[in-house]
């Protein structure tokens, strides 16, 4: 069954058509790569799915129900988590707190409970902390849980972003260039981690410029260029697709 379905999505910024009639589907537990040249509209796809941008046309269907027009926090609550192309952590909070914020929507205690620090509040708080620690440990950050986020080295900040997204137990994870700025050994390790995340049964949509990473972990690729989907298929097919070659090299294929 399809977990996420994009139907004829179009997005307009003033005169610029950033996305035009983009359609694709993510099956449950799949790892799908979303690639395209700079400015193709990949991040815009993420922003549409997570409710940041309004579409001028089309529909986004999550597990059978439309999520169009829902606010970002509602979509997150429904199980769509993401990371950002330019790292956007809560930089003055500790690593574990970053992950704990993601569990806000999974917890319920209100103001009164917090002020009285009731038994159920303490229990819930403990659970939030435990789950967040687990999410950090999953990405190999257990040692850094009390480190302020902006003091972490770059590669670990990228990992923390993924941990934060994982903490809430999402169904779908959207990764926007997670390997950007990493050295080859770091991105190799990241590839393995992405595969492990998929083993948890989480559907992954991956935007990445590093073709080694993309070809390595994705079973299926979607290619967009100038806001239009130009190809979709297995990595081997995509590599030979003349439209894709043209889009990347900027000249007609022979």
């Amino acid at each position, binding site marked *: 069954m399809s977990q996420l379905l994009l139907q004829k999505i179009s997005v307009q910024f003033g005169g610029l058509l950033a996305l035009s009639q983009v359609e694709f589907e993510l099956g449950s537990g799949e790892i799908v790569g979303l690639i395209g040249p700079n400015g193709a509209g990949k991040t815009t796809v993420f922003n549409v799915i997570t409710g940041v941008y309004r579409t001028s046309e089309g529909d986004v269907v999550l597990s059978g129900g439309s999520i169009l027009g829902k606010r970002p*926090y509602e979509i997150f609550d429904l199980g769509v988590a993401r990371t950002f192309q330019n790292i956007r*952590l809560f930089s*003055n909070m500790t690593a574990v707190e970053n992950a704990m914020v993601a569990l*806000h929507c999974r917890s319920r205690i209100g*103001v009164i409970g*917090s002020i009285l620090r009731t038994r159920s509040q303490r229990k819930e708080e403990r659970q939030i902390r435990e789950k967040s620690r687990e999410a950090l440990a999953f990405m190999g950050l257990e040692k850094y849980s009390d*480190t302020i986020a902006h003091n972490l080295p770059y590669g670990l900040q990228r990992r923390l972003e993924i941990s934060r997204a994982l903490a809430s137990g999402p169904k779908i994870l959207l990764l926007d260039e997670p390997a950007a700025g990493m050295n080859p050994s770091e991105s190799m390790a990241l590839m393995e981690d992405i595969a492990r995340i998929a083993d948890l049964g989480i559907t992954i949509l991956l935007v990445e410029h590093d073709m080694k990473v993309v070809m390595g972990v994705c079973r299926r690729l979607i290619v967009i260029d100038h806001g239009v989907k130009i190809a979709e298929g297995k990595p081997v097919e995509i590599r030979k697709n003349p439209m894709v070659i043209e889009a990347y090299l900027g000249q007609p294929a022979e």
Partner: protein
Amino acid sequence: MIPGSKHIWKKYAIAMIWLLVLLWPLLGIHADGTLTFSETWSVWIWIAGVLLGLLMLVLAHRSSTSRMVRAPVAIAMEKINRLGKVMPGKVWMVLIISVSLLFPFLTDRYAQDVAINVLVYVCLGLGLNIVVGLAGMLDLGYIAFYGVGAYTYALLSIHYQFSFWLSLPIAACFAAIAGCIIGYPTLRMRGDYLAIVTLGFGEIVRIILNNWMELTNGPNGILGINAPGLMLPQFSNGIGFEYIYLKKLHYLYYIVLLLCVFTVIAVHRLNFSRIGRAWEAIREDETVAELMGVNIFRLKLLAYAMGAVFGGLAGAFFAARMRFVSPESFTFIESAMVLAMVVLGGMGSIPGIILGAMALIVLPELFREVELYRMLAFGAAMTVMMLFRPKGLIPAKRVGTRSEEREG
């Protein structure tokens, strides 16, 4: 001299000439048409002198020569820190609690009066800290909630003889409602716009209090508010209960101490709860907070409302203590004062804000002799502070302290 200092002197000279041009018409031209110069000169020389001192301080701070000054300071700080380690937190707590409990027995009326003032401002500072320090929204109209709390109790007391204690939660509720009403239109605003709009709302509340004659008696204020009372057992003629008004200063001190302790505990616990974390996430990055499942509109409203609650409680106490309220007590300068405490003490840091409130209330008391130049001294103090401790007297620290294990 370090490079660039010439530039600074030039700027200083221009600024001083400009000040003189500005100052003379204000001080030198009199209503009866006479012109004088001496007053202008004396004020100008004072300001120029103080600024010169500050400038030297800045230059010393920047240049390496300041090490001579800074080294002893650093050593002193080190010693204080070590003292802090020798005396664990528990000892400090006991010390602070016993001093604050015994305070009225050790001091005179004047000191008690100042202490009550400090405690009221601590409540206000901590309330504003929720909005500014935690949720990161600049609020320049915070004193409005203080006013709402004060007028709520004032009106309940003179019209319906409500007791102070019963009025407290009502004042908190009304303030929270006011917080939501003022907060709602500003939910989508950030930064400067937010500051301007909250400033406007603060003034609107004050102007309403000033002009709604039927309800608030306008600028004349409301007189005859009851002091807080208590039902005490009474044995003079049989056993019975008597309602006693706690008008004595030291009773008031204990009441506001109680209020303050409640505020400290409540704000601390909120800070370390899922709600406080969500507020901080909004402060750090609003867009990402929402993408990570935080309902930002709701939590911002909640921040306004909770901030207002503590402001309202402090306001109700203020009315009960003064037994008189008028719109004059809720001007913009009060908002600025509370904000200064929060910034000076260290945004988001509870001990910092307590210290900030003490500094900003007690210092002007010490400078009573030079009353006229208080604001000047005040500005100078703030400048020096921001130079040496830009994150506040006691910056909020996060590492480790956030873990529940240490929280206990």
